[in-house]
């Protein structure tokens, strides 16, 4: 455990010693809040309904571009600077390295989540928000972000180039996000694609119900992504 925390602390220092954390957090909040309050056919101020679903709809798309930016450097930079060699020859397992790094991105995301609370808090003063739906939506949004970050980490573990890690991360996330639109109709394949898609499971959270199937879906995606990352680190052994 102390090894995981050592990695976690190092990553947090790196995020906050540079402008990365600040840029990532503020761009997400600025873009998402702007889209929510003042953009599109039904901007919040125009429709005058106490509903913050827009935050999570727009947020899911904005995060698709922001999350891989947070995780792209995690392994690829270690590879690029050759520091990975030193790291994996210390008494720490590959999985501990991955979890420590992943943990740091979750904390960055938690700060982003805290930043989005401005909308529900301010709206609750002027209208009636369904707190059940708000809470379940936030849980859904947390799992969405956690999944994006894990996928971004997996993309980062295959390359020494951060740009490649970023683009590949976006592509992987987009494929999973949009998978439900890939097959039409009601056949078995369509159902399968729908059940594999992030958007399908994500939308369920907005009904104010927590379904274990949705939770298991996100947790499995996270688990597989971390496993893939750790396997990618271990691939040095079979070269």
């Amino acid at each position, binding site marked *: 455990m*102390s*090894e995981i*925390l*050592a*990695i976690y*602390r*190092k990553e947090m*220092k*790196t995020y906050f*010693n*540079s402008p990365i954390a600040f840029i990532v957090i503020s761009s997400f909040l600025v873009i998402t809040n702007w889209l929510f309050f003042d953009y599109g056919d039904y901007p919040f101020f125009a429709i005058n309904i106490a509903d913050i679903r827009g935050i999570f709809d727009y947020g899911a798309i904005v995060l698709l571009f922001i999350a891989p930016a947070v995780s792209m450097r995690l392994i690829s930079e270690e590879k690029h*600077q*050759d*520091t990975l*060699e*030193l*790291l*994996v*020859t*210390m*008494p*720490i*397992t590959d999985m501990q390295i991955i979890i420590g790094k992943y943990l740091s991105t979750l904390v960055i995301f938690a700060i982003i989540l805290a930043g989005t609370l401005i909308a529900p808090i301010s709206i609750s003063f002027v209208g009636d928000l369904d707190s059940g739906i708000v809470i379940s939506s936030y849980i859904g949004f947390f799992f969405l972000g956690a999944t994006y970050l894990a996928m971004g980490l997996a993309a980062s573990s295959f390359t020494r180039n951060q740009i490649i890690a970023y683009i590949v991360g976006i592509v992987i996330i987009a494929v999973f996000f949009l998978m439900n639109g890939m097959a039409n109709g009601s056949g078995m394949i369509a159902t399968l694609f729908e059940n594999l898609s992030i958007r399908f499971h994500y939308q369920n959270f907005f009904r104010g119900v927590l379904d274990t199937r949705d939770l298991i879906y996100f947790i499995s995606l996270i688990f597989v992504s971390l496993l893939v990352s750790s396997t990618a680190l271990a691939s*040095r*052994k079979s*070269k």
Partner: protein
Amino acid sequence: MIDVQNVSKSYGAVEAVKDVSFTVEQGEILGFLGPNGAGKTTMMKMITCYMPPTGGKITVDGLDVVNDSMGVRKKIGYLPESTPLYEEMGVRDYLNFIADVRKVNGADRTRAMDRVISVTGLAKVIHKDIHELSKGFRQRVGFAQAIIHDPEILVLDEPTTGLDPNQIIEIRNLIRQLGESKTIIFSTHIMQEVQATSDRVLIIDQGKIAAQGTAEELKASIAGQMHLNMVLRHADKSKFIEVVTAMDQLHMEDIKVQKNGDIEAALIIDAGADLREQLFDLAVSNQWKILESSPSSFTLEDVFRKLTN
């Protein structure tokens, strides 16, 4: 302390290390000498548990590098080639991070930090960021991380590459100083380096051990041959070559005619041969004037070139 038995390593179809065996005793400084691409780095990556050998067995203090990897890693301090460091971190933050992972905590941490800072002379730059450091200081930070947990064994991959002559001497002194209490393997492609620092040399070429022993033993393995450089006046080149080839224990390495007609020859004398009188008589009978005759023993560099060509 380190026991390498019949170890091989292939990268796909390329065999980087072929059936290599050697041991390193406790407290010994072993120099790995070889041209670039000889397999030195691969060998070190296997000892430090970066990757397993494809064949054979490596044990470190009795622990197998594959089956008891974590135990081995705790005993080793490693400085990989070209000293990878986190550029954006501060020197102290970086050393604290390594101590964190290595579980050097509490009062031990304070003592360890003081010790490595003083041994590696980092006090002046301890508050700087790593990307601000000169190559020499970066190298010292690399050393500091390798010894922060006071390991029994140090593995140093080309620790002096890219340093200026003063820094090289500093690093060599540091290796010798650390070698008083630790077992050290370090690699280099510079001959003088092994001569200056190591107890024993292992020459590795094309993935195989070409020779091993102390620097003196290796020089002796060339069986006491000597170089002889001669400059002769009033000598004829073809005649000189003819005479030298006719002699038993003398071999021609190189011959040049200087601008003024003098002949400059590089010769090799077999071990134990004393040709001084013969050469004198030869010169007299041919009416050559010996302007210069300087013998010199073979250097480790000659051994290296001979073995790795």
